[in-house]
Each structure stands twice: as C-alpha cells, then as structure tokens.
C-alpha cells in the first residue's frame, strides 16, 4: 500500500512538470505581456516598458526563466505577480479558503441531491418520478450555471433589493455574513454539479440491477428494499465516486464564472484577473496547482476505492 502511494506520487511529478511547461509555453505565446496590458491604462512609454521587462527578468532566455520558476515552485514559492508585485503565495493563501468553501458546499449539495434522485429514479425506472428526475438531470446539464447565476442575482436585486454582501468574510468569525455570501453561489454550482452525478448514479444503478446476484438475492426471498440498500447501493456507488472525482475540474471551472458573478475573491477571480492582465506568473501557479489538486484527489479516490471494496488490490 505504502509502496503504491509512493509510486503514484512519483508518477505525478512528470505530469506536473508537463503541465507547468505547457502553460509556460502557452503564456509565452501571448501577443502582449503584462506591461503592454498596463501601458494601455497608464501610458507607459515603450522604453519604460522595456526597462520593466528587463527588471522582471523577462528578457532572459526562456529555459533559464522556466528553470528558475520551477526551482522556486518546488520549494512552494510561486514568485511575485508581474502585475502588482504582490507575492503569489500570499494572494493564493487569501483566496484559497473562499474557493475551497464554495467547492465543498457545492459538492455536498450536489451529492445530497444527486444520489437519492439517481437511485430512486433507477429503481423506479419508467415511473413518473424517473421521468421527472431525468428531466431535471438534462435541464441541469443544459442550463449553464452562469445563466442561473445571472438570473438569480438580477431578480434578487429587482424583487427583494438584495445583493450579496461583498468583501472577504470567514465562516468562523462572521458566520451569518458568510452564509449570505455563499448560499446562492454554492446552491447554483451544486445544482449543476448534481445533474451529471445524478445521471451517472442512475445508469450505474441500472447496470447493477441487471446483475445476476441481484436476481439471486430476490430469489432467496430478500425484500427489494434491503437489496437496494445492501447490494445495489454498495456496488453502484463506487464507480459514481470515481466519476465524481473527475468532475472536480468542473467545479474549478465553474468557480471562475460563479465567483465573477457573485463578486467572491477566490482562486477563480484571481485566475480571471491574471488572464486579463496577462500575468503569466500567476497563471502558471494556478494551472500547476489545479493539476496537483486534481491528481491528488484522484489518488485519494483510488485509495478509498480499495478501502471500500476489499476485492480491489492496489499494486
């Protein structure tokens, strides 16, 4: 087991190097750089811009720039923003709890909606409930979260003159304000997250229902409900768990838009600003970290898989 974990962690290294190289290369294809973006606002002269590029070390050979960045990143130092000279570590640290809270709440809400709906819908295949929840599933996949977000925030303001309070709050210090900030964004993100999980749950449960051991259990005289909970759920939820792990990217992507609509200052907002400012130091850090979280989470899911299903041997 320990050997397996170590090997998986080692396998993550080339992927992370690849991701950072790829984003580094892409960022260097940028038509303008951060200083061109700045000079539009502040009227920097081309000479001053060149001076700034020199100072920021952007005129050095690309391999040197990459290796220096990577060397620091290994020590978890992501350098400082080209745009406002702030430490990337500091702004990430400030933004991370916001996105984490949003993603956690959204996945909890999503799973709480999705699993019961999916299981019942599969068990009562062809019933009105099944049609209704399948329709909900397609609707959730089809109505983009920024559409629900825009409608929600517009009509909350129009009908109730209510806007979500701005600024950064902590759930531990100002719980009430924090709830007001997060209730709608996490409900919206969670609802769209639940649509795909619900569809996965339904189809895996349907698959398990067709297995021989379910027929055997029924033939033995077991009542349908214990079969559903003891046999079907146990076997169906494992693939759902794996598939849910691959959806984390969806939550990260969704947080860029949802944070933008609800003026939350999380990782999504940082990414969006960095892209607008052509601040590639920040873009590199966010993309590499996202890949790391993604890979780490999938490792955790594979481990829990082995823990939940004793037939699976990790080797």
């Amino acid at each position, binding site marked *: 087991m320990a050997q397996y974990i170590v090997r998986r962690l080692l396998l993550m290294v*080339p*992927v992370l190097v*690849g*991701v950072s190289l*790829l*984003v580094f290369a*892409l*960022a260097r*294809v*940028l*038509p303008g750089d951060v200083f061109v973006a700045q000079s539009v606002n502040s009227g920097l002269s081309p000479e001053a811009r060149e001076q700034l590029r020199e100072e920021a070390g952007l005129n050095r050979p690309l391999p040197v720039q990459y290796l220096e960045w990577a060397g620091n990143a290994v020590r978890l130092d992501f350098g400082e923003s080209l745009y406002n000279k702030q430490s990337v570590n500091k702004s990430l640290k400030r933004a991370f709890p916001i996105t984490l809270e949003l993603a956690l709440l959204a996945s909890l809400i999503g799973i709480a909606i999705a699993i019961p709906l999916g299981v019942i819908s599969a*068990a*009562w*295949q*062809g019933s009105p409930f099944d049609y209704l929840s399948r329709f909900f599933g*397609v*609707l959730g*996949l*089809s*109505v*983009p979260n*920024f*559409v629900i977000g*825009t*409608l929600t*925030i*517009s*009509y909350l*303001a*129009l009908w109730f003159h209510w806007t979500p309070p701005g600024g950064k709050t902590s759930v531990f210090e100002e719980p009430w304000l924090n709830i007001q900030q997060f209730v709608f964004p996490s409900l919206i993100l969670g609802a769209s997250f639940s649509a795909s999980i619900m569809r996965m749950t339904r*189809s895996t449960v*349907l698959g398990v*229902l*067709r297995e021989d051991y*379910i*027929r055997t259990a*029924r033939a033995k005289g077991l009542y*349908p*409900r214990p*079969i*559903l909970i003891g046999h079907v759920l146990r076997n169906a939820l494992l693939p759902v768990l794996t598939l849910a792990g691959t959806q984390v*990217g*969806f939550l*990260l*992507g*969704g947080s*860029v*838009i949802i944070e*933008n*609509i609800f003026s939350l200052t999380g990782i999504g907002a940082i*990414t*969006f600003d960095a*892209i607008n400012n052509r601040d590639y130091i920040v*873009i590199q850090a*966010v*993309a590499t970290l*996202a*890949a790391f979280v*993604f*890979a780490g989470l999938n490792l955790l899911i594979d481990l829990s898989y082995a823990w939940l299903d004793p037939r699976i041997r990790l080797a």
Partner: protein
Amino acid sequence: MTSRETSVALGFEYYIAPLPSRWRRSLRLARQNPVGTLSLVVVLGLLLSAVFAGQLAPYSPTAVATGLRLEGPSGEHLLGTDQLGRDVLSRMLYGARVSLRVSFLSVGIGTLAGAVIGMISGYFGGWLDLIVQRVMDIVMSIPAFLFALVIVAALGTSSTNVLIAIAVVLIPGTSRVMRAVVLQVRSRAYVEAASASGASGMRVIARHIVPNAIDEMLILASVALGAAIIIEAALSFLGLGAQPPEASWGKMLAEGRGVYEKGPHMVWIPSIVISVTVLAVNMLGDSVRDILDPKVRGGSETRF
C-alpha cells in the same frame, strides 16, 4: 433456386418481408423517439436561422438608435432593444451564427483531430503511443475550462480563438476512446486474418477500424456539442470570446447584467435561448446514444 422456392420444395413456405426503405426506417425511428425528433427539429431550426440570419433579421445587428434604448418587446422590435438601441432579435440571430459556428466547427475539428491522433497512437503503438498518451495525460490533468481560458488568453480574445480552444480541449478524451477502439478491433481474428493475408495498414484502418469507430465518435461528438455551446457562451460572458460589435449570446447576457432594472428582457432572452439550445442539443445527443449504443437498452427484472 431462390430461397422461396427452396422453402416450398422443403414443404413449408415463408414470407420474407422486404427490408423497409431508408426513408421508412427513419420515419419509424422518428415515431419511436418523439423527444429526439423534436430536438432535431429545434436544432435544425436554429441552424437555419443562423445561416439565414442576414435574410431573417429585421434590422442590422449593429444599427444604433439612441431614442429607443432598452425598450421592451413590441410589434416593431419583437424582442425589444438593448442599451444602445440595437434590435435584440437581430442580434440574437447573428449571435446564433457565432455560437453555432464556433461550437459545431470546434466539435468537428476536435473530434476529427482526436480521432486521428488516437488512431495513429493505437495503431502504431510503441514509443509513439507512449509519448502521445503522456501528452494527453498532461492536457487532461488541467481542468478543461481553465485550459480553454489559458488558450484564449494566449491566442487573444476572438471567437475564432475560442473555437481553437474548445477543439484543443476535446482532443484528449476523443483520442483515448479512439485508441481503445483501435486496440480492441486490431486484436479481433478477422482483422488479424486481413493483415496476415497482406492487407496494407491503410486498408485495415479504412475497412475495419473506421467503420467500428464511427458510432463511438458520433456519440462523443453529440455529447460534446452541448458542452461546446456552454463553453463558448461562458467565455463570451467573461468577455474573452466574440468582441464588439460582433453579437454573441454570452456577451449579450453579460451586458444584460448591468441593465436588468430597466430592461429585464436583456437578461432573460439570452438565458432562455442559450438554455433551450443546449437542452435541444443534449436531448438529441441522448437520442443518438440510445440509437447507436444498444448497451443502454433494456430494463431490470426486479421491481422495486
């Protein structure tokens, strides 16, 4: 002796129903699948209105009328006017052009490129396969939307670059599936027999692998289409897609955010159109999968 004569000679007679014509089969398919048919009609309607936007639009999508800002829907302007007095219906029609061009082309290009890469990777194997698959691992480990954002930022904001970004994001998944199909088909006895009797690599690919892979690719593409429309709209919503004065649905929704008090139609018209379009495309994708993938048919024996 025909089979009918044979059957008579053998002492029994049977009737061989003629195979229904293609048209009849399609009609039957449509009757069995009303939801799929309806969504096909909606998607075709949207495609037609995008193609003929120039003829259908009552006004120019960029004509500014300062006296008529944020008017609600009326006989003159069926869907009202926007914050600059431009006709919303005309802008939605031209927006359909941007949205559908970007999503259809990106899915087409992305699926094709992914299929070719997966085919080469799976068919030739060896170190080429290893390198290609590791590159795909890397691309897949960046969340798709984030990667699309980075590509658009790198190439610059325009609807063509959004098209490229979506196509690139679709490549890894498609190439994975294609590679799996190639590996599976290659190990079948009849394909080995064809290779052994001297069929060239190209012939094996064209005769055996492509026909086996087409259904899978169609399923993938039909599922990807809805996602592509959403990504396009989301990027334009963030201001990274189509640039003014080009109209696009996501951009119009973003503009509506600032003026919802005076012109709520600016928010709900793009909302409804984006949602209905993606809904129709997704339902169509579901129907395509139901028809092509027999695995999802049939039900359980136990009633709960």
